[in-house]
C-alpha cells in the first residue's frame, strides 16, 4: 500500500484533526463523534443541515461544511456508515429552533444509523427530518436491493438545501426542495482501478490492465459490468447515454453537468471527459449552463470518474448559484 497514513485506525480522526487545524475560525471538531461542524452552529432561526456517511469520499462531506452548505458532518470509518450514536449526538448538538435536516445517501447502513439516531433525537423533542439521496443509475433492479445508491449527485442536494436554509426556508420547504433536486439528478461512474482502504492495505478488487468497471460504486463495489478499456470519448458516451435516458433529459433542457473525479484521476483528464459530455449534450439539444469539474465525492484513491446531470429550472438554478464557503477551496 502506497499511502500517506500512520496507524490505519487513526486515518479518519487524523484527517479530521487536520481539517480542524486548517480551519480554526470556521470549523469546530468534536473528536468523540467524528463531528465537524460550523463554528457558529447551530445557527438560530435556521434549519441545521447534517450529512454523515462513511469516510473515504472526501471532500464529501467533512470538507463541505460551511456557510451555505452543511452545518455539520459526522462521518463513520472508511466506507462504514457512522454509528447511530454519532448521528444522535450530532443531531442534539445541531438542534436549532427550526429543526435538523439529515441528508442520507441511500445505503443500508446509513439508513439504519440515521433512522435510529432520528428516533432517539425525536424522543428528546428535537424536530428531525430525513432526506434520502439516490442518484446512481448504475443500480438497475431496485426490487432486489435497497434501491439506488446515493453518489456524487448528493452535492447538488446539499448545495440547494444549504442555500435555501440560509435564506430561511423551514424544514418542510427544505424537504420539498431537496426531493425536487434529487428527483432531477442522475449519476453514473466508471472505475479504472480499484481503491485501497487503509485498513485493508490492498486493492478492494482486481482489475486487469485493460479492464474497467462500468457503473462502479463509490465504495469500490463492483458495478454494472466489467469491460475492456476504450478511449475517453467512448467511455463518456456510455455514461452519458445511461444518465440521459434515465430521467430522461431531453432537447431543450438546461442542465448542470458534473464530472467528478474518484480520487486518483487528475483534473486534466476530467476536462477531457467534460469536453465530450458537453459536446454530446449539445448534439442532443441539451444545454449545459452550469459546470462542475473537480473532485466532489471520491472513492479513496480510485482512478475513475462519474458523470452527473441535474435538470435546472429557475428555482434550482438560483440555489446552485448562491454563495457558499467550504474547507475545500483554492484560496
Amino acid at each position: 500500500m502506497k499511502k500517506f497514513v500512520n496507524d490505519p485506525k487513526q486515518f479518519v480522526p487524523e484527517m479530521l484533526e487536520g481539517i480542524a487545524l486548517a480551519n480554526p475560525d470556521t470549523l469546530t471538531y468534536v473528536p468523540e463523534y467524528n463531528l465537524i461542524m460550523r463554528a457558529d452552529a447551530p445557527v438560530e432561526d435556521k434549519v441545521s443541515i447534517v450529512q454523515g456517511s462513511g469516510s473515504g469520499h472526501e471532500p464529501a462531506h467533512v470538507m463541505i461544511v460551511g456557510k451555505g452548505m452543511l452545518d455539520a458532518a459526522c462521518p463513520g470509518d472508511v466506507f462504514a456508515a457512522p454509528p447511530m450514536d454519532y448521528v444522535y449526538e450530532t443531531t442534539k448538538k445541531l438542534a436549532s429552533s427550526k429543526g435538523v435536516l439529515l441528508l442520507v445517501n441511500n445505503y443500508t447502513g446509513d439508513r439504519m444509523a440515521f433512522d435510529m439516531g432520528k428516533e432517539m433525537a425525536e424522543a428528546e423533542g428535537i424536530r428531525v427530518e430525513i432526506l434520502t439521496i439516490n442518484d446512481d443509475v448504475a443500480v438497475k433492479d431496485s426490487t432486489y436491493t435497497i434501491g439506488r445508491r446515493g453518489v456524487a449527485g448528493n452535492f447538488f442536494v446539499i448545495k440547494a438545501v444549504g442555500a435555501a436554509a440560509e435564506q430561511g426556508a423551514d424544514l418542510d420547504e427544505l424537504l420539498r426542495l431537496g426531493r425536487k433536486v434529487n428527483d432531477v439528478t442522475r449519476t453514473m461512474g466508471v472505475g479504472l482501478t480499484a481503491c485501497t482502504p487503509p485498513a485493508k492495505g490492498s486493492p478492494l478488487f482486481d482489475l486487469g490492465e485493460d479492464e474497467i468497471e462500468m457503473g462502479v460504486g463509490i465504495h469500490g463495489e463492483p458495478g454494472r459490468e466489467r469491460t475492456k478499456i476504450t478511449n475517453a470519448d467512448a467511455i463518456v458516451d456510455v455514461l452519458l447515454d445511461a444518465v440521459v435516458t434515465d430521467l430522461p433529459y431531453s432537447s431543450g433542457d438546461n442542465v448542470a453537468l458534473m464530472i467528478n473525479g474518484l480520487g486518483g484521476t487528475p483534473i486534466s483528464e476530467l476536462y477531457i471527459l467534460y469536453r465530450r459530455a458537453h459536446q454530446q449534450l449539445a448534439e442532443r439539444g441539451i444545454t449545459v449552463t452550469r459546470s462542475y469539474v473537480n473532485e466532489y465525492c471520491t472513492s479513496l484513491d480510485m482512478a475513475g470518474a462519474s458523470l452527473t446531470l441535474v435538470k435546472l429550472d429557475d428555482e434550482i438554478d438560483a440555489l446552485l448559484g448562491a454563495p457558499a464557503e467550504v474547507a475545500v477551496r483554492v484560496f
Partner: protein
Amino acid sequence: MSSAQQQVELVVRTIAETAVENEKYFGDLDAVVGDGDFGYSLARGFEKVLEGWDDLDRTDVGTFLKRTGMIITSRIGGTSGPIWGTAFLRAGMSAGTTQELSADQVVQMLRAATEGIKARGQSDVGDKTLLDALVPMTDRIEQEAKSDADAEQILAAAAETARRAAEETSDMVAKRGRASYTGERSKGSVDAGAMAVAVLTERIHEVWKTEGVS
C-alpha cells in the same frame, strides 16, 4: 455468579476475541462483492467490548447482553453496527434475569436476535446475509435439544450446520446489503456475515470443549 452468567460471558468473550482475530479474513470476504470493511467494523466494535469488559454491568444475563449490544451499536458503523447491536439487545431482552440457560432458552434468545435483525435490516432468509447461517443454525440447535445431546454435542452440530449453510450462500444472489448491487455477480462467493457466524460458532464449540462450564 450464576452459571448462566458464566456461560454467556464465555460465549460473548469468545465472539469478541474471534472477531478481533479474524479482522483480515472477514474483511477479505466482504471485499469480494462488498466494500471490505466488515472485518474492520466488527474488530473495532468488539475491541471496545473487550476494553470495557471488567466494567460491564453484570446485574443479570439480560443486562449484560444489552450493555454489550449498546457498545456495539454505538461503536460499530456500517450495516453491522445496527444489525449486530440489535441482535445482542434482543437476545438480552429475551434472556432477562435467568440464572440458568437451558437449550430452549438459547433457542428463544437466538430467535429474538433473528427477528431483530430481520426487522432492522428489512431482510429475510434467502437474501444472502448472516441470516442464512444464523437461522439454520438455530433450527439445528432446536432439533438437537429435543434429543438427549449435551451442550457440547449441540454446539458441535450447530457449528457443522452453520459452516455448511455459510458455504451454501455461495450459490445465492444477494438481495440485501452492498453485495446486492452486483446482482448475478454476487454468486460464486460466500456472504461475509454468514461465514462470520460459522467461524464464531465453531470457535465457541472449541472453547466450550476446553473451558466449558455446565
